[in-house]
């Protein structure tokens, strides 16, 4: 599976309140509507740069904070094709896998060196990520098999619809 998008760089500890503030979460259940407020407290203009296919490249502990699944869903709805980070908070990571937003752990050097706005391409099967502008490449942390299946299906609901079972039944 291959994913590509425009690089949008963010820092450490991007929490779920920054991704989508708790105050909006109660206003509407509509993810597309919520996506209008993505990253509002961080930078209200950021949402325009996500639109149309982007890959967020963040540093440590991306998605820390609350368990709100609206966070990965909103990112997906806002045009984010994947998130690459040095590390993720665990609930966010699980939620992203479940809703079919690829979350990718890669090394710090790559993350620090890629350039804003350049095109990135990820090959999940080969376990590689490429920065097309600067010509860099790096390995990504491999997924356990059942998790890769969920991501490739586009989320757990899609997987279940296609196979009528969950992929972890034999782990």
């Amino acid at each position, binding site marked *: 599976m291959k994913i590509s998008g425009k690089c949008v760089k963010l820092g450490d500890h991007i929490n779920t*309140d920054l991704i989508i503030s708790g105050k909006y979460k*109660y*206003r509407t259940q509509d993810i597309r509507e919520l996506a209008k407020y993505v990253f509002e407290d961080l930078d209200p203009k950021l949402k325009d740069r996500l639109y149309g296919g982007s890959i967020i490249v963040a540093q440590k*502990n991306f998605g820390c904070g609350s368990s709100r699944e609206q966070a990965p869903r909103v990112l997906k709805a806002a045009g984010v094709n994947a998130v690459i980070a040095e*590390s993720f*908070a665990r609930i966010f990571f699980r*939620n992203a896998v479940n809703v079919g937003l690829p979350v990718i752990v890669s090394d710090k050097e790559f993350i620090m060196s890629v350039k804003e706005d350049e095109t990135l391409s990820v090959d999940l099967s080969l376990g590689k990520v490429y920065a097309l502008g600067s010509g860099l490449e790096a390995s990504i942390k491999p997924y356990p098999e059942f998790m890769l299946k969920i991501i490739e299906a586009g*989320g757990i609901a899609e997987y279940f619809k296609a196979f009528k079972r969950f992929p972890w039944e034999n*782990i």
Partner: protein
Amino acid sequence: MSTIVEKILAKSSGKNSVTAGEFVLSNVDVVFAHDGTALLAVESMQEIGIERVFDPSKVVFFIDHASPSPSPQISNIHSAMRKFAKKHGIRLYDVGSGICHQVLPEEGCVKPGSVIVGADSHTVTHGAFNAFATGVGSTDAAIAMSTGKLWFMVPESVKITVEGKFKDMVMSKDLVLHVLGEVKADGLTYKSVEYHGSCIDGMSVDSRMTIANMAVEMGAKCCPMELNSATEKWLKGRVSDFKEVKADKDASYVDELYVDASKLEPLVAAPSNVDNVKSVREVEGVEVDQVFIGSCTNGRIEDIKVAVKILGDRHVKARCIVIPASRRIYYEALNAGYIDKLVRAGCIVGFPTCGPCIGAHMGLLGDGEVAVSTSNRNFVGRMGSSSSKIYLASPATAAASALEGKIVDPRKYGEGR
């Protein structure tokens, strides 16, 4: 050889033993969601296409985050939750019952050694009762609600040993803030944190819950604690025939930390990261607009009691909102005369809700306002305006700061002063 989490997950996945790093498919004993997450879980069930609940006695809903409803939209969420609960015969704790992490153990739903998943990150709180309790998102909650099972990676464990006694006006909140300052906000990501030592053994249930509650602020997956006599006593009459799960003496930990409780002083997490920990002395004098004493971290009777003690017959200078975490706590505070004293001191005493903790209702902050809050997160915009600032502190520090309208070291109001 095994840590607490390894033993619990081995049993719940039908294995003799498991080790850190392994993936398991575990049975789930309790799954719950609240008005911020339940509807999305219900939608996820529909999306997946399984619309049954695996065991109605093991699924619980709470209306606690914005409760009673401050808007028609939220009222609709609440109605939809009530409808689902009725249809599937599951328990729903409605408006006024209290915060999920307080009500669940109070109602006897948390058993030592059990597996609890909640669609809320602070589900780790139930580790105070020796459970493997972890927060999940709505889709995982949906899967657990409909199948009674969920996959987990068995986490590595970290051991934190706390010896000695707190000095006067130092509380377990200060201990957990201290640990957070040491390990940082991602220091225990994916890990199980076990607290041991004489300080933990001698601690009240209220104080232990505060510690387990904030494990997630360090990124931890769970915080299963061994029982102590206070917790055993508390559980009796609420939970029958339970068996504690203890760590083996030679269990393996990836890291250890030692804390001397007698050396701790009142601390805060200054804006706007939970690990921006400073001593109260360092920030003393910062002007405060609002104080919030409540939340699943510090909205218990012990917390209200210390606030009442500090306030005495004086009157607060900052707006001070006090919200007991559950109806039972509210009632206890009422019977003890605390509510009377709080109201006389000029506090606003609310009904049980998460409310201001998450900026849902009951006292949102305006532009540039400063709050001292006993809750667990001080992220930008958490309690209202994105230019407001939050200092996380113990109930003692919060009450002392409410009295003076600025951040104050509570030891000023302690014994012998």
